[in-house]
């Protein structure tokens, strides 16, 4: 497995070298946290070098966007990311992310490049594209943009025991997606899902498509395993600030701690983030697919319990 990982990393680096995408390294310990209510970072509070608490990054996104604003051109990074409370057969609290950004691309062009990378690592597989809306309509007979939360809940309860779970429309959409739709994607090779509800695409450009607000976000599932998450990136600093504030409001509402906004990112965006598309891909999961592992722990030198 150590060799398999080394080979995979080499293959990834070769892929980007051929395409003139620059490898970068950005800090793991950041002053600003992430406002996303679904992500809990690890907080570092001890250290003579600390003026205030710092956060282990949940992704290198903010730092890489600052580089893009400074004129870096296309960049990629192989970095360790950290998410507290996420452990299981497909999650390790510390995990490896491949994240890259292409100025001038939209999300469709980037999906093409993601497919090329994944096929370079896994071999030829069929590729399908579904809009989020079409996928729900096709598999569940529901319009995810129009259906009321109560209708989504009812649909979930038809096939699953969800006990006392309750929440907003996004919670039910997440549940339907992960429990009823993802299993159907097994065996379909590479499945791209694009154009998500705007509420589920916080860092993406938002547009009205067919009378509904969609975020230009995409996800890649390979044989039912969620592998990558990408966006046609939002570049408007004011809109980004508004979304971060909204995230914190949702945190407050759920009784969670608010996170300080990344003012350095917002300043860089004000100075000018070039139009670009970006994507984050789980390297451990890519290795799982390549090596045929059913559990992420099989791909790690030392998993969480043993590190």
């Amino acid at each position, binding site marked *: 497995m150590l060799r398999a990982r080394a080979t995979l990393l080499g293959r990834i680096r070769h892929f980007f070298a051929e395409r003139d995408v620059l490898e970068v390294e950005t800090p793991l310990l950041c002053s600003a946290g992430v406002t996303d209510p679904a992500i809990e970072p690890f907080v570092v509070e001890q250290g003579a070098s600390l003026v205030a608490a710092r956060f282990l990054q949940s992704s290198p996104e903010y730092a890489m966007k600052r580089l893009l604003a400074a004129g870096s051109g296309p960049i990629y990074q192989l970095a360790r990311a950290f998410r507290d409370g996420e452990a*299981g057969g497909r999650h390790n609290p510390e995990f490896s992310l491949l994240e890259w950004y292409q100025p001038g691309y939209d999300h469709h062009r980037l999906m093409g490049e993601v497919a090329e990378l994944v096929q370079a690592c896994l071999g030829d597989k069929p590729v399908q594209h579904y809009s989020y809306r079409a996928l729900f309509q096709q598999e569940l007979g529901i319009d995810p943009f129009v259906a009321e939360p109560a209708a989504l809940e009812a649909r979930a309860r038809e096939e*699953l025991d969800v*006990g006392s779970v309750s929440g907003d429309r*996004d919670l039910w959409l997440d549940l339907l997606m992960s429990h009823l739709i993802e299993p159907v994607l097994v065996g379909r090779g590479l499945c791209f899902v694009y154009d998500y509800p705007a509420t589920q695409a916080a860092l993406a450009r938002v547009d009205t498509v067919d009378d509904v607000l969609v975020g230009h976000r995409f996800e890649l599932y390979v044989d039912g395993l969620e592998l990558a998450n990408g966006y046609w990136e939002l570049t408007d600093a004011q809109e980004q600030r508004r979304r971060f504030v909204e995230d914190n409001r949702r945190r407050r509402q759920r009784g969670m701690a608010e996170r300080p906004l990344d003012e350095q990112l917002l300043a860089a965006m004000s100075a000018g983030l070039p139009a670009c598309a970006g994507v984050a891909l789980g390297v451990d999961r890519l290795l799982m697919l390549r090596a045929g592992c059913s559990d992420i722990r099989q791909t790690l030198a030392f998993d969480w319990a043993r590190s």
Partner: protein
Amino acid sequence: MANYSTNEFRSGLKVMLDGEPCSILDNEFVKPGKGQAFNRVKLRNLNSGRVWERTFKSGESLEGADVMDRTMEYLYTDGEFWYFMEPDTFEQYQADAKAVGDAHLWLKEQERCEVTLYNDSPLSVAPPNFVELEIIETDPGLKGDTAQGGSKPATLSTGAVVKVPLFLSQGEVIRVDTRTGEYQGRASKS
């Protein structure tokens, strides 16, 4: 009892769910990259035996169930209850027909059994994997009938009916696999 959160759910953990004691069989963490986290948990209801899957929001917690497995010695039955004793403390427990279930076919005095206690009361009984019981009734076998195939039913002292080879007769003690109800051989020692 202590409360357990979804990230503490492990196979074998006993919890209360909808007022019933349950054993956790499996716990799958499910989280889309930018979405909310769930746990898909497989459970067995220790009262009904039913196995099913329920989804919880990650972070939800359940009360632990006061369920313990104890090795006890079977004492006797008065037809209504079956009596067991903890060999270390000499404490006695009585189990009703529902708790004993099919185990009553294989209970032999002084044999050790696994008794599952719920709130200090027997919930279920598991007999030992093998037990040696006397045949109290069976048709006589033909003399010399040792190598021939074929079997006949034999009633054991507990009331269990087991298929045995034709050469066995009443009064003989045989060994039975309690999990399958199958004859294993003659008893190891008289």
